[in-house]
């Protein structure tokens, strides 16, 4: 693993860890955006340009902004001394560490360790991605379009003011 990938992995993991531990929700969301950027760097290093830029566009440009705005809209009423964590937090951390440990151990022990390095660099050409999207994956693409439309309408309906609720003067 070369230096650039090492840096990007560090950024990703540090951002994610900060997002899950910081107290201020806005800081958490911004740290999350840093983690998404680091991941985009990792994708770029793996030769998946299109996915990397799509990741930045969707996650940093849309999801991070959405999260930040949701935090502002649900500004928690400040209860003094309230912990940001679920109260007995040790079991949760324990399960997380166990699962991570199991995953890492499995990766270490698997056949993947002896897999050969990639022979050439098959940077995914955008043209090939487009052609596949329009031929092999055309049905999933259409379904995805339907899903996104449904999600858009659903989100708008959910966030709409209740009809019974009085309008603010």
């Amino acid at each position: 693993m070369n230096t650039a990938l090492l840096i990007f992995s560090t950024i990703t993991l540090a951002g994610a860890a900060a997002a899950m531990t910081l107290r201020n929700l806005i800081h958490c969301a911004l740290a999350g955006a840093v983690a998404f950027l680091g991941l985009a760097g990792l994708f770029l290093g793996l030769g998946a340009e299109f996915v990397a830029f799509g990741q930045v566009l969707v996650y940093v440009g849309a999801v991070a902004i959405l999260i930040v705005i949701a935090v502002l809209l649900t500004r928690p009423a400040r209860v003094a001394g309230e912990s940001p964590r679920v109260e007995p937090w040790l079991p949760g951390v324990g399960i997380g560490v166990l699962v991570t440990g199991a995953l890492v151990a499995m990766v270490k022990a698997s056949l993947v360790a002896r897999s050969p390095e990639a022979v050439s660099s098959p940077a995914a050409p955008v043209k090939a991605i487009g052609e596949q999207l329009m031929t092999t994956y055309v049905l999933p693409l259409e379904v995805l379009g339907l899903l996104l439309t449904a999600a858009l309408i659903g989100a708008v309906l959910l966030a709409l003011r209740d009809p019974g609720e009085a309008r603010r003067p």
Partner: protein
Amino acid sequence: MFELFDQLFVNLKHAVVGALPEGWQVLASPLISAAAILGVFASLFALTVLVERKGLGRIQNRPGPNRVGPAGLLQPLADFIKALTKEDIVPVSADKVLHFLAPVVMLAPVLLAYAVLPFGRNMVAVDFDAGLLFFFAAGACVELAVFMAGWSSHNKFSLLGAMRAIAQMISYELPLILATLGVVMLVGSLSLVDIVASQAGHHWGWLARWWVFTPWGLAAFVIFLIAATAESNRAPFDLPEGEAELVAGHLVEYSGFKYAIFFIAEYLGLFAVSALAITLFLGGWHAPVAALDWLPSWFWFGAKLAGFIVFFIWVRGTLPRVRVDHLMGFAWKFLLPLVLWNLVVAAVWWYSRGWAFAGAGILRWVGCAAMILIPYSLLGRALYTRHGLGPRTYRLAA
């Protein structure tokens, strides 16, 4: 002779890189490109500020800055020194770290976006296969910086301004991206170098084959221009900074050099998006007519960019600010349906390319133009009457 001037900067860079020792070359090549882009566009920024102040002065019937240097020519220098030496005030209740980081996060993605723009023949820093997507991905990061600036100041005006700016940028990003899709569809590539290359050649032996000369290209270009103005928070879409209502939006609590960095980022963003418009619709570095092909490619790019800058200054000096509800309605109810319809027209244009009967060219052009203009006028009229977008009559208190 032409070759010499056309490839002047490319050869210069190759010479410098070649003169360096072997190990440094890999590092030096991108660094030189970055330094050149930074230098050229930072000085262009200084020049633009001067031209803008002078031009706005002319439009408003006053001389503009004329004290520093001959005819006020050294004004940018004075502005620079002023910004640099001014006291940098950070509000007590501000989130110090985010308040400091916001200008940096604002400027960095804007500079990154320049990496994929072709400024002349062989003059591009990185030719990504998905260059256009890279440009928009970099632009998406700016929204987060605006939010950081507005939120970290702990000031209701800056938070309101930031929210307005984000809402505006997200709304206008859709028509901006969709307007470029027609070109991407017909070229079949997201690489900006390929898009410029696709506009080589001439109609009837003299007029350049630019996308703006097609009906859908012209419509997409106009929509792109409107969306780009809104995207870079320029007048008449400068609501996020509306001085009269929000003081200066997310910039309220910024002073000194941090404010200057926001200012630079805003202008560099404007140049970048203009450069993208040139690349996509105005043939990039190609000359407009065949007879002018003897001028170097970078000259044409610069001339077009200068034209854009003058245009934006003119618009700023001429048009009044848009109202907030009109702003959103305009993007979602008018631009978005039109730009989607424009994609259909682009497809019709593509499938009618094989027509070979007499008068096919004219029929194709007029037909596509009608396909755009009729929905445009119908939609415009519907919105005009139904949603109160029309002229208002104000009654004075008697």
